[in-house]
């Protein structure tokens, strides 16, 4: 009964489902932060952990207050670079996945190379990317795009190939055209796969952008961590770490909510 009501309401407002997921996950995260803070304080007190190893939570909170502007600015830079990198990566990945589906020969020529390249941890290439793209935001964007590209491309390819021959044949017997079959069978089948790839990639994307900043000195969270460490401001360092973890979590939540939105919209 309540399920029907929810379904009807969702049809009126496609944002309801996505909003619910986001609210639920953010609530969970706040509860997690609270628990983490308590355990953290307990550990620091019980084991008398020195400040340079792990400063107590109040000191970290104070760092948030004292350097709020700097943290926000750094986080904004990192999140912006990550988002642009992911968008570029998604566009190229899906285009290439479609090309691979369309041309078997292309797939056979390039897929083995892609699988080989995938065995290389992309962060190891970071110095080269910094050399090519310079020390500004471009190298963070390039790193994020490079790191997330493979996961999203492979997921999209798997998704486009996932409809069973039965489903395609069923559409064929109803007289659907080639493009109708692609649009009504392949694309809907692929959407969950693409979002799975996005989800996996989104978790590591921010960390990757921070890595690039850490090496290049671009003014993001990674640089903030390095700077605060070099001036021995450990509360600020942990504040930046917490911010990066939060940003990664929110990024992950955003992809979940978007997936829900797209699915609700298409139903």
């Amino acid at each position, binding site marked *: 009964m309540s399920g029907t009501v929810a379904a009807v309401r969702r049809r009126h407002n496609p944002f309801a489902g996505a909003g619910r997921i986001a609210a639920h996950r953010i609530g969970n995260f706040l509860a997690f932060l609270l628990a*983490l803070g308590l355990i953290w304080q307990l550990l620091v007190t019980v084991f008398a952990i020195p400040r*340079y*190893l*792990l400063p107590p939570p109040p000191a970290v909170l104070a760092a948030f207050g004292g350097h709020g502007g700097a943290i926000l600015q750094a986080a904004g830079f990192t999140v912006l670079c990550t988002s642009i990198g992911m968008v570029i990566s998604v566009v190229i990945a899906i285009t290439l996945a479609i090309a691979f589906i369309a041309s078997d*020969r292309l797939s*056979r*020529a*390039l*897929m*083995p*190379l892609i699988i*080989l390249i995938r*065995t*290389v*941890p992309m*962060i*190891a*290439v970071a*110095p*080269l990317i*910094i*050399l*090519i793209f310079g020390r500004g935001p471009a190298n963070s964007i390039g790193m994020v795009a490079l790191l997330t590209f493979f996961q999203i491309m492979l997921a999209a390819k798997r998704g486009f190939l996932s409809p069973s021959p039965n489903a395609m044949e069923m559409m064929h017997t109803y007289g659907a055209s080639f493009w109708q079959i692609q649009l009504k069978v392949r694309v809907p089948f692929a959407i969950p796969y693409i979002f799975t790839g996005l989800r996996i990639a989104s*978790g590591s994307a921010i*960390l990757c952008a*921070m*890595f690039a900043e*850490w*090496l290049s000195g671009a003014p993001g969270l*990674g640089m903030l*961590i*390095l700077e605060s*460490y070099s001036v021995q401001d450990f509360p600020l*360092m*942990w504040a*930046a*770490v917490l911010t*990066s*973890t939060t940003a*990664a979590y929110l990024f992950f939540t955003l992809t979940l909510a978007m997936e829900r939105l797209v699915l609700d919209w298409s139903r």
Partner: protein
Amino acid sequence: MPDVRRVVLPASVFALAILAFELAARAGLTPVTIAAPSAVLAGMASHGGLLWYHLEPTLLVAVTGFLLAILLALALAALVYVVKPLETTVMTIGTVIDSIPMIAIAPVLVIWMGLSLPMRLTITTIICLFPIFISVLQGLKSPPSTANELFTNLAASPLQRFRLLAIPYALPYLFVGLKIAAPLAILGALIAEWTGAERGLGVYMLNAMFGLRVIELWSGVFLACAVSASAYMLVCLFELLSITDSGRRGVGS
């Protein structure tokens, strides 16, 4: 015969791409940051001794850290398999540590242990540990329910169940984890060197980057990629040798 064709096509594409880069670089069409492949190879050949001087400590840290991670992951997975209530705790701690960015853990480790070999090993081991642990644990839990019922029916002891059922079922999963972790071990060693070291492939790359020595940087990156790809293929080879039943390879990947 079809096997040969499967290799020839991508290999020729690769060769063509290299050739295109070469010609473009010689014609001066590429930016100065893109080195000609022939120049990179020549540079590597003439600096062979220096490259090995830097590669050696990196390999040492990567291999040792990787082996340490395997041992720890196996012990931890066995412990969690035997003492089931531990699973949630270990998984939570693991996920938290795994989600703290390495660039935040590294400084703490440096404060703790200094710029030393143990610090570099710790970073490498932490990076490799979690993927192996998760795969092995998943593998230990992978025997189908009827196989577990069979061992119950045969009144097998817990040790027999572990040795004859759980471990063989976990073996293909172990290799899934090792394939993820082997390239990560190289990465771990590089990151450890980036936090501060005097020798190592990571140091070589970073110095080349800051000094804008294009050919040196390309050779360093190429070497790092080649080493990770070889590590991956070495694990595949071990898998081929230890799992003779081809149907069980690459499970769950």
